[in-house]
């Protein structure tokens, strides 16, 4: 049986990454991560070991969604602040400066499109495409039927494509 410390070390990346991509802001992602991990500590005896990851991601998603609603209700202007690590292009993407710049620009706009994507599409795409979760696990986290998850993934991708189409449909990214 894993201890709390070991579990935190194992799952912190999933929690922080989800919050980071959902909120588009490292500082808010840190706040959410801390809040969620402390909540896990308070519920440590009640959460079964094999359910820790879905539990954490469900709580993280809810915490992020609450923050999103708070943002909308407040007059504070939110400025997206993408982690530079996220904007780094992947290895093997080519060393041509123009190509690298084009890809970095595409990634920046993709993240911006992701951050304005409606729920639950945003959560589903983060869980599926970035975090690599299976449909069944996403279904458990979001409490949605399996087929609904599949349909929402397609819709989410299509919405992203529509958001980016005007800018990139004539640009060759091959």
């Amino acid at each position: 049986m894993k201890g709390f410390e070991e579990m935190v070390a194992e799952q912190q990346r999933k929690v922080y990454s989800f919050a980071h991509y959902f909120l588009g802001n490292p500082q808010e992602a840190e706040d959410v991560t801390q809040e969620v991990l402390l909540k896990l500590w308070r519920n440590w005896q009640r959460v079964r070991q094999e359910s820790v990851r879905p539990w954490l991601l469900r709580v993280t998603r809810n915490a992020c969604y609450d923050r999103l609603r708070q943002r909308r209700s407040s007059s504070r202007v939110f400025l997206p602040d993408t982690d530079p690590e996220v904007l780094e292009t992947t290895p093997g993407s080519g060393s041509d400066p123009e190509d690298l710049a084009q890809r970095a620009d595409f990634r920046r706009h993709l993240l911006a499109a992701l951050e304005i994507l409606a729920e639950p599409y945003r959560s589903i795409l983060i869980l599926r495409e970035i975090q690599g979760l299976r449909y069944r696990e996403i279904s458990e986290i979001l409490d949605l039927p399996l087929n609904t998850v599949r349909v929402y993934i397609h819709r989410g991708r299509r919405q992203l494509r529509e958001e980016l189409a005007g800018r990139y449909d004539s640009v060759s990214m091959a």
Partner: protein
Amino acid sequence: MSQWPENWSCEEVWEHLEELLEGELPETQATQIRSHLDQCAACEAQTRLAMEIRGELRALPELDAPAPLLQAVLDQTVKAQEPRLSLGELLGSWPRPIWAALAAASLILVLGLTVLSQRPTAPEQPDAAAIAQATAEARFALARVGVLTREAGLTIRDKALRDQVAVPTQKGLSQFLGQVSDAESRIPHEGVKDV
């Protein structure tokens, strides 16, 4: 009536593009869409964009939470629960049998280390004064043995003289004189002893 169109418009292709890329379309419909893509630049561009989005999303890195944040969480949870006792409190909280066992173990350890730390050394050479003292003591002992031996020899000699010379002489003399009774012939040894 089938849900699939007979002739695919661009809009219908875009609607089902994600399913095509996921391999979730029936083969007939997938083939129809592919043939549309071969002839339609706009839909072909849409397909490339869709593939780019999928590729870029999947290439986004998962990020580690900052280490100070995780440390702060552990400080507020696991480490906050650990008892913070002084050494005295910690030792005092141990039950008596543990103390006794620790004391015994410490004693054994000290003794063991002491024994192990003693290396064999060459025998010490006595100095002249010690030799002189030992010699004098040996001489005294020998002299004493000599005195005792001489005293023992004298005692043995006196006993032999009394038993073999004095008593027979007295008996012979009494018999000769005829003046002594049988009772008087028993001369006490003490008188002879003092000679």
